[in-house]
């Protein structure tokens, strides 16, 4: 058995060690991705709302609020 095989065999405990490490990374990657998706959704919704607002203002020819 070469060094790499020995490493992956984990002294016979591969079935416990590697799933533990896999879970660690899967959970943390999910935790990193979730707020990114939320951020994208929040900004897209805001842009849609702003677009609707400016369309309404144009229809009624009211100048947009300057805040």
């Amino acid at each position, binding site marked *: 058995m070469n060094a790499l095989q020995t490493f992956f065999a984990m002294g016979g*405990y591969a079935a*416990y*060690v590697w799933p533990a490490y896999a879970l660690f990374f899967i959970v943390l990657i999910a935790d*990193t991705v979730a707020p*990114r998706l939320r951020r994208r959704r929040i900004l897209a919704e*805001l842009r849609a709302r702003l677009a609707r607002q400016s369309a309404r203002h144009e229809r009624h020819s009211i100048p947009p609020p300057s805040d």
Partner: protein
Amino acid sequence: MANWIPLWLHRLSSPPTFYRFAGTLRPWAMGLAIVLGVIGLVGGLVLAPADYQQGDAYRIIFIHVPSAWMSMFIYAVMGVSAFIALVWRIKLAEVVAMESAPIGAAFTFITLVTGSLWGKPMWGTWWTWDARLTSELVLLFLYLGVLGLYHAFEDRRQGARAAGFLAIIGIINVPIVHFSVNWWNTLHQGSTVNIFGHSKMAWDMLWPLLTMTLATKFYYAASLFRRAQTDLLDLESGKDWVRKIAESEADR
């Protein structure tokens, strides 16, 4: 507002200022987390020798123990921020408390599952109702309770207040988790690492563990910054500074 709070802290708690501050620090925190994580994992998985009793199964410690520490550390941060939010009504403290909850829940979940994967070959069982394991499970339920309560209200600030109360009450569980191995007879092994005294661990195994601990700390900082930034965008979505961000990102 109490006048002993320094002015810079006051300024920092303003949402647009904190948004910029978090945006500047976040890449550094994430970078340090990744670099330290790689070093710690090489040290733990490759360089450290096998344990004389547990063989290679003990290598789960390098993620299990740092995650367990984070599960308690994040709870403490959440509890203290919730307290600050309730007493001084600082919006940012509320955001930090509520956005810490999912990260803490993630680390608690990792702790429980990796512990289970370690327990099976060492103890012969995935789970046992012992004091350490049970109190850690209670910690997970506390996190989930805080998250559930927070999202159960139509008005998010009202939800944050209710969830904040639960977070503060739940702090009592943190010392219980920590001291459970001393207070009760447990199957779970006692502390191996002692910050103020002699650690019962060889240096070859200790340094990767401490490096991973630092890596998870920086990861938490990075994740919290990202989550707080996102939450501030939601909370202040009517404000001018958020509108500017939304417009500047439309081109991309």
